[in-house]
């Protein structure tokens, strides 16, 4: 489903360039649950941004369902993002001035879904994530775990094929973390491809495959022990 070939990302620093991603080759099949691990600064978030098409300043090839993303016009790329991608962030990034229900509605509002249908989808999602009782609350009235729950709900509301989760449990207590991970697992079982970044070995074990990033390189699988379920 996703194929990266020779993806490189660099920033100009002084007279030279500093590389954040080097020669990244990566194949991800539909329905996989991928964990990306690596030390801080390794380029994990950068990789997710490229996968999520938020970042288009890179070299190399990126194919999504055999579409060459790197050749697309920005408009088509945005359309692809809307169709396939959902994001979950470590800092939740809910919008403070919008209620839970309105936050859920937001991605739909950007996807030309008729209002009627949007209401139904939001109601379904609230129900599915068991946050109906919170729908009129503002993010600041929720606990961290509940906020991330809403954030995940918001990521799936547009029915994406891929969820990109950048340290989704990074700011949560273990119990809340487990709840979120169980949720991601269930979404994966229902068919959504998940790509998560985590520092936590236990959460890494939810995935079927782990990719190690180190200074922008994908570590040689032969030399790094791969944990799998």
């Amino acid at each position: 489903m996703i194929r990266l070939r020779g993806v490189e990302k660099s920033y100009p620093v002084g007279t030279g360039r500093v590389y954040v991603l080097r020669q990244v080759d990566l194949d991800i099949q539909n329905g996989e649950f991928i964990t990306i691990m690596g030390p801080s600064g390794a380029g994990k978030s950068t990789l997710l941004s490229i996968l999520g098409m938020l970042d288009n300043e890179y070299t190399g090839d990126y194919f999504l369902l055999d579409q060459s993303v790197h050749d697309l016009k920005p408009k088509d790329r945005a359309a692809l993002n809307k169709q396939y991608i959902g994001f979950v962030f470590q800092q939740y990034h809910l919008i403070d001035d919008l209620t839970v229900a309105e936050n859920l509605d937001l991605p739909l509002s950007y996807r030309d879904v008729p209002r009627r249908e949007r209401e139904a989808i939001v109601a379904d999602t609230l129900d599915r994530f068991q946050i109906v009782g919170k729908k009129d609350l503002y993010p600041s009235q929720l606990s961290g775990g509940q906020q991330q729950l809403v954030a995940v709900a918001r990521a799936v509301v547009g029915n994406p094929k891929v969820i990109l989760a950048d340290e989704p449990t990074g700011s949560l207590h273990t119990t809340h973390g487990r709840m979120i991970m169980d949720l991601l697992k269930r979404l994966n079982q229902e068919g959504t491809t998940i790509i998560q970044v985590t520092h936590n070995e236990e959460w890494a074990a939810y995935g079927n495959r782990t990719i190690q990033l180190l200074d922008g390189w994908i570590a040689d699988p032969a030399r790094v022990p791969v944990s799998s379920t």
Partner: protein
Amino acid sequence: MRFSLKNFRYAVRALRRRPTYAAVAIGTIGLAIAANTTMFTVFNGVILQPLPFRDADRLVTIDVRAHTGFPISLSLPNYRDWRDKNRVFESFAAGADWGMTLTGRGPAQAIYALAAVGDPFGTLGLRPHLGRLLTPEELPDHEGAPFVTVISHGFWQQHFGGQTDVLGQSLVLDDQVYTIVGVLPPDVGFPQASMDLYVPMGTLPNLPWDVRSSSFGTRGFGRLASGVSLETAREDMARVGQEVRAEAGDDTALPELRTLSEFIVGDVKTPLNLLMGAVVFVLLIAVANVGNLMLARGEDRYRELAVRGALGAAKTDVVSLLLAEAFVIAIMGGLLGAGVAYLSVEAVMGLLPAQVPALLLAQVKVSWTSLVFALGVALGAGVLFGLVPAFRMARTDLVGSLKSGARTTDQGRERLRSALVVGEVAIALVLLIASGLMLRTLDKLRNVDKGFNPESVLTASVPISKERNATREGWLGFYSELRGEAAVIPGVRSAAMTLLLPLEDRSWEMGLHPEGVPVTPETTQSVLYNVVSPEYFETLGVPIIRGRGFTSSDRQGSNLVAIIDETMAERFWPDAEPLGHQITFETDSASTPVYRTVVGVARNVRHYELTEPSRIQVYVPFEQTGVRWGMGLRIALRTSVPPSQAAGSLREVVTRLDPSVPVSRLQPLDNLVERAMGQSTSITRLLTAFGASALALAALGIFGVMSYAVTRRQREIGIRIALGAGAAEVIRWVTTRALRLTALGVMLGLVASVALTRMLSGLLYEVTPIDPVVFAIVSAGLASVALLAAYLPARRATRVDPVVVLSEEG
């Protein structure tokens, strides 16, 4: 609070390091102050300053009200009696504007003289620039005065190049030789500084010295004895009026007093008040804008102020630091404003209504008062736009913000900024609606059915000499010949002679009686009386809607005829045929009424004002008039070329026929229409300029607030982009916020407009102060500008990089 010099030095340095911010702030406040100072300078000269006469508050003028209720002018018998019987005046005078012909100094010229009686110069407290002024002995209230004259400073400069040997020289005025005895100082005169010269009324021939009911344009004025109030004077003159009436009969007119300043300032007070108010609005918007800028700037200074706080600065020190910056901006703005005002006051005076008397305009000068005003307003504004952010800043917990290191998200400040913008939009809307209403008024005025067609008509005054006017053959002969010659000038389609031109501020009224009504003062109706050659209706484009126009067979000796206007036809014969009825408004030499037959009805002509149909107007063929009008006839030419192109040829024709006839007031008829619209035009121009400034400032305010909001909400925008918001959606999000503020401002502005535009109603024509079209168009226009102003920050918002803003901690 301490204001140390150090704070100011620091403020100046800080501003120099931020030239853009400094320039925008100082420029905004400076231009607003320039507008205010300019208007104040005008307002001060015209309204606030006393008239340029000694103890001007003791000067009053006398209006005369006829027993019929109409305002008329002062007759000489009334002048004598009112002067002698009153107990309140220290001195008394009267004068009549008198058009005279100056000959013997190049081509004959029309000049404006004041024919005076009594002690005008002593009353006004004027002193000569050269020579002496006319004494009361030289200005008797009867015939036989000496032929002496005092000339104005302007006339002296123009005709004698300011030579001092002018004294004792002579001027030939209406064929009489006058000796110049003095020159007035510059910029004074009565009733206008532009009056050319002053002659004794007793030198003029054939005045109705002893006809109490006469009215030929004389106005009385006087100086109240010291300590006499206007009220007392009014009571005394009321007593005098009644006493004279008791002696002279019930149809004697009565005096009414007004201050001279009220008479001279007249109608220009309302528009000037209005414009002064409008310009204060512009200032308020500028203050809100600079306040907003300073709030944003406070944001930048947070860290610095926090450090100062941590080092032990008291809050008052911080406030005084912020105020210092506000004052530096204010003072620089004040100086800039005074400078721009100095340069622009001349130009603005050119935009003022022509109705503002030159006498008062001469008092409009950028002076120390203007500078003090500019700096005073600047400091006031500085306190306003400096204190608000200063106190907001001082109220927040500076040290706390330093500790957390977090960027402040002070909701209150954003609300304050939004509130300021809402206010700006509201004020701008009020000003724009006011100018919209005026623009619509102008449009209505331009398209009003004037009853005549002013396009392509050239007019001129061509008064003949006394000798020519002495005989019927003399004046009729000259004018017939002139008309005939003028009609064949190339490019001229028709030529007409007429006593009156519409909108010329000149009229002649007569008492009218229709057949069957006894000719007595009680039954008199005053009508506008015009004497015209047959070509008049065609030349001026006045449609004859019933009956016929005049023809060459309407001559002396033939059946006496008249043409009336629609108003008269409706008033006198509402359901009947007006043609064939008899009317009278003239008497023959034996004082018996002369009846004429109505042969035509002409469209109503706007004569006195563009905004109102004339009162009843009647036309008489000039070959059938009993009076010889040679001193005041106008010629009108309808042309197929631009009217001014015929001017040279017209002059040539007149000079060829009689070099002693001065051609003056040579102008297209359009000019008279323009002049009638002058006050509206000028108010509209100034209001529109102020409205445009307000709009620009409000747009700047919206731009500032939206830029700030976009900066502050980068994270939110980033999230939205990450969730799939495209450029269009981000732009819509930003502009919607701007529109919400604008809508609130517009709503407030509409409410304020409904309350305030009523003050305009006296200046509007066929437009209600709450004209829905204007309200709607202006609101929509303002909203569009607001959208445009929000578009730039919105574009910037689309360039927010979600990767960057979302990876920032917090």
